[in-house]
């Protein structure tokens, strides 16, 4: 985790530090247990293909949680996430980078809080060198928005 980010130092258009993920099948099983989502399209290749998918896919809610980590790591320890959310527009596969990103769209004060509004999203990154299906790079699969509260200097 980096140094504390202060509201004063930010401006609209700024990009926040990226968080890069790359799910192994093991991570998807850990997430199934951690979240309680046991839908087989996320760990059983035969089952996933039977529903018309090319391979098992990354849970949408895991990508939501990745975006939560992106924000948490950026605002901690002194800031807090007020709200964040995303839409699941595209599928991601394991063994390819999922790049979590955010840019500041608005900076304002309300109810005594120093707030920052962001566009957040995941986009497909570098694929591993293996035979599994991959997405082209640079596709925004999970767009969303967030509001965080930050300390002032």
């Amino acid at each position, binding site marked *: *985790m980096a140094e504390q980010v202060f509201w004063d130092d930010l401006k609209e258009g700024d990009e926040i530090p990226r968080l890069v*993920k790359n799910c192994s099948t093991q*991570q998807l099983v*850990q*997430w199934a*247990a*951690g*979240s*309680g989502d046991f839908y087989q399209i996320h760990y059983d290749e035969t089952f996933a293909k039977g529903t018309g998918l090319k391979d098992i896919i990354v849970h*949408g*809610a*895991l990508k*939501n*949680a*990745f*975006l*939560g*980590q992106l*924000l*948490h*790591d950026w605002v*901690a*320890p002194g800031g*807090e*996430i*007020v*709200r*964040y*959310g*995303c*839409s*699941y527009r595209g599928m991601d596969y394991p063994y390819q980078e999922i790049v979590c990103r955010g840019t500041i769209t608005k900076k304002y004060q309300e109810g005594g809080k120093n707030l920052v509004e962001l566009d957040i999203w995941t986009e497909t990154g570098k694929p591993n060198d293996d035979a599994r299906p991959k997405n082209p790079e640079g596709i925004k699969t999970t767009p*969303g928005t967030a509001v965080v509260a930050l300390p002032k200097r």
Partner: protein
Amino acid sequence: MTQEAPSLITDEMKASIGREGPASRSEVDRTGIRMFARSVGHTDPIFYDEEAAKARGYRSLVCPPGYTGTPAFNPARMGAAMAAMGGGMPGGGAGGGRRMRVLNGGTEYEYTGIPICAGDVLTSVGKTVSIEQVASSLGQMVITRRESTYTNQNGEVVCRSYGTSLNY
């Protein structure tokens, strides 16, 4: 849409809009927090180390974003939980008549600023906010928006979640 498609939204589904479902309980414990945080890949020690969490002013381990505890599972209540999901899925039996696929459309969490920590017991109450039918690239699609409110053991609302499901 140039032609009126037949409605997939049954009267039963319409009647479910705004009606609160039964309360369900989820428990926030240290093991659940660690499992969730580990599966995401979190590195902040407040999700793993109680002393680190206390040093940052929390009562115990903190819920990572998107975690609202583990629902208290009880096989005897599975039927009731399904029935609470807005009076049945379109086409799943009542109304529609054809089977539909379900996709998770999106999730949003709104926090009230009260930390959710290990030891908390949250009561969540969900309701369907809206049901609409749209023409999509996958054919006629029913978009259902649901909202859940999470209240802790002290009666404080700690989180609201908004979920969208797509049936097509």
